């Protein structure tokens, strides 16, 4: 029953979010602000994690491929497939769910408890649209770029660490990352990213928007936003993988 209540309220909120904006120029400014807030500020953490994870995947692959029947270029191939199919689109999005999700929920939740959202409503502004639409638009726009950077840095990290530790040669790694490449897998990856971007921003906004109480409840909304965003990312990851890869 509780699930249906939240689902119903979520879809009603989404309908309000996508109603006609009062003034496009103000919304556009908000979107630019949110791109910076959600996207650009997340770049350092994504860069560091992706680079080192790419390196670790490469070293682990090289360590595991002990059979002479497995060519060494398989190390590069494995690093590319891991980064493209799963690490960048899913694991990085889970990390972003933590960073962006808590940020969005606590920001909107604080506005709720200090009556700033009521103030917007009384001014005649659709508060759901004004606060949430720019976040969703910015997230869906910027996250594919973040994930593309993550993919590039992950594969680069694999190259640098693979060479530095002697796990494979430069030629083998570069040959590996080009081997058996199927471009449709990028389509699969970026479909996942767009879905996850929408889930993270909208679910976190939902929990923030319906915060009631004080500082403690803002904290609870933040936690709920991260937990539910992460769970839904995992569920949709399974559904989309099933849809695309079978």
């Amino acid at each position, binding site marked *: 029953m509780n699930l249906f209540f939240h689902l119903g309220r979520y879809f009603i909120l989404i309908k309000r979010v996508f109603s006609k904006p*009062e*003034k496009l120029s*103000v919304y556009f400014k908000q979107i630019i602000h949110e791109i910076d807030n959600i996207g650009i500020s997340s770049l350092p953490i994504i860069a560091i994690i992706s680079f080192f994870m790419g390196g670790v995947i490469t070293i682990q692959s090289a360590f595991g491929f002990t059979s002479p029947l497995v060519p060494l270029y398989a190390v590069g191939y494995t690093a590319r497939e891991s980064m493209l199919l799963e690490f960048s689109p899913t694991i990085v999005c889970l990390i972003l769910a933590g960073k962006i999700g808590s940020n969005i929920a606590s920001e909107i939740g604080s*506005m709720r408890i*200090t*009556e*700033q959202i*009521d*103030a917007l*409503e*009384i*001014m*005649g*502004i*659709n508060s759901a649209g004004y606060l949430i639409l720019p976040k969703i638009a910015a997230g869906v726009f910027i996250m594919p770029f973040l994930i593309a950077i993550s993919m590039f840095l992950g594969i680069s990290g694999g190259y640098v660490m693979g060479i530095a530790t002697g796990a494979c040669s430069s030629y083998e790694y570069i040959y590996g990352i080009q081997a058996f490449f199927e471009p449709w897998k990028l389509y699969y990856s970026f479909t996942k990213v767009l879905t996850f971007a929408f889930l993270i921003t909208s679910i976190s906004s939902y929990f923030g928007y319906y915060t009631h109480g004080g500082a403690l409840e803002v904290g609870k909304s933040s936690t709920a936003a991260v937990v539910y965003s992460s769970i839904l990312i995992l569920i949709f990851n399974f559904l989309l993988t099933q849809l695309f890869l079978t």
Partner: protein
Amino acid sequence: MIEIKNISKSFGDTKVIDNVSYVFEQGKTNLIIGESGSGKTTIMKLMVGLHNVDSGEILYDGQNFPTLGVKEKQEVRKKIGMLFQGGALFDSQTLEENVRFPLDMFTTMSKEEKLDRVNFCLEKVQLTNKNKLYPGELSGGMKKRAALARAIANNPQYLFCDEPNSGLDPKTSIVIDNLIQSLTREFNITTIVITHDMNSVVEIGEKILYIYKGKHWWTGNSQEILKTTNPELVDFVFASGFMKEVFNAVRNK
């Protein structure tokens, strides 16, 4: 003019507002007074649509607000300015951005015109040259005045003030009260002020509605309230010894 007709509201099994009717007149400071928990803020929230009425009508110049559609409600709300108890300023925006916000959203003014209007409003509330300060850098009284500046920025026809002098010292309270009254008269606004501050009642109460346990209990003005014999209102007004002395002084004149 705003008229409420037989409005009622319950939360669960508790009836918070019980069949209240009143006319809030244009160009006057209309006060809603009552003890804490008597339903004053609920009436205001019903009037601006933050809560829905269970029954009754809320007429904004003849338009029944609760029955309007979302877009029509938004159009009415564009004519409303509201001063919240806590100010409700947008804390990530400067004072200038806060006051300019309704202008950005609803007008086609140029940047210069908006700045002129912002400066005019800030001057009205005695916050000249404070444009670049953030709400976090303001005192309680300054926050209320800034919120008042934002509330009047878009030339509202209706001004709602929820306990405008709660938490303020008597001197700042008088400044806020006088501001509200002068703005009401100057711009011919329908102003509704919620308060339980007797000083405000005496200073600016041109029309007063006393709410007792969610019911319309007494109406009058600042002179009549000092001569009231209504037992509940006498208890409320003369709760302090000081007010009793004022009352006796008035009676003995």
